[in-house]
């Protein structure tokens, strides 16, 4: 008996959604079966029908859509931009912007200090004698053009480019004595790198 009552209560719980027509076929059949035999269920159904009619019958008061939409447009701003992207996309956009900014900064920094050179690359230098070799050196701080000439210890050595802020300098040395001069330069611990470079 208890089970039957429990079942009836469970089916009566479905009456509101039987009234609005959203039950599935099985539930609808169960409600119909109950309504065929249960006076209380029929009474409740009448109540629900009246309730539904009253709510559907209510006129909508909605107004001011235009001004509300205008307000929302102002909140949304001129363009969607990054602000309305999902988080993952937003982070990707931020990372991409950072990379572009960093690249641009590096590029312009490079432009300010002159073209990038390696120790063995030929730089744009003043003309040198045909019998001279080019020697590129990487010197420690404090070693200037005069010091290089002193270390080279050869009157025909010329400093084509004095040590840059990064310590790179270029010398023109007589071809006949190039190896001896390089050896002398290499002997000084303040010179970190000495190499003959192609002309």
């Amino acid at each position: 008996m208890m089970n039957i009552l429990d079942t009836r209560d469970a089916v009566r719980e479905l009456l509101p959604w039987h009234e609005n027509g959203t039950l599935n076929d099985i539930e609808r059949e169960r409600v119909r079966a109950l309504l065929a035999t249960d006076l209380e269920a029929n009474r409740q159904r009448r109540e629900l029908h009246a309730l539904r009619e009253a709510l559907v019958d209510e006129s909508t008061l909605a107004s001011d859509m235009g001004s509300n939409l205008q307000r929302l447009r102002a909140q949304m701003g001129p363009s969607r931009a990054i602000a309305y992207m999902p988080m993952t996309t937003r982070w990707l956009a931020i990372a991409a912007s950072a990379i572009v900014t960093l690249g641009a900064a590096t590029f312009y920094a490079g432009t300010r200090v002159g073209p990038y050179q390696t120790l063995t690359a030929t730089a744009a230098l003043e003309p040198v004698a045909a019998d001279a070799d080019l020697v590129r050196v990487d010197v420690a701080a404090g070693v200037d053009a005069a010091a290089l000439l002193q270390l080279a210890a050869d009157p025909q050595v010329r400093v084509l480019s004095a040590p840059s802020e990064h310590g790179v300098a270029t010398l023109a040395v007589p071809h006949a004595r190039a190896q001896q001069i390089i050896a002398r330069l290499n002997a000084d611990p303040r010179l970190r790198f000495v190499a003959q470079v192609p002309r």
Partner: protein
Amino acid sequence: MQSPNDRFRPNGAPDGAEAADDAACLAAVVRGDREAFERLYRRYYERLFRFSLRVTGRIHLVGDVINETMMVVWRRASEYRAAAQVSTWIFGIAYRKSLKALARDGRHNTESIDDVPEIELQMPETVDREAMHAAIRRAVACLPPDHRAVVDLTFHFNRSYEEIAQILGCPVGTVKSRMFHARAKLRPLLGHLLGD
């Protein structure tokens, strides 16, 4: 087969074509399409107005609730999952925004259905249909907000109990329980009106 109650469906859940267009609009919103967004806004404005007004019971909150709801749609369209209809997702947002607006507003609606004098809930022996409907709507307005939401989603918006559970973010059993208690509170009036 159509239900005999289908004549009540104008405010109800969207049909297949409208649901598909909602989904298409939302996909366009994900791509930043303002035109599609405003189409959704116009389509849902009246429904959200009604729903928010029913949940909050305060007309001065409704405009903000609608705009806050649609701002979430604009910003988080990509988070929509097709497990529920677009309309169910939007109503769910509107429900939460309505409750938040109500909490922010602070002044609690002190009138509950239990506080309405018996005399006001009683109607003359013979009442016209409009007076009866007005009395019922007044009684519904005195229910707690979560009960009002269940009643309105069921009877005005024709939502199934599963959809209502999704909108309210609660189990189906809670939806049925809220409906049970709402009906229990309305029963004296409805019984009287129907002459039971």
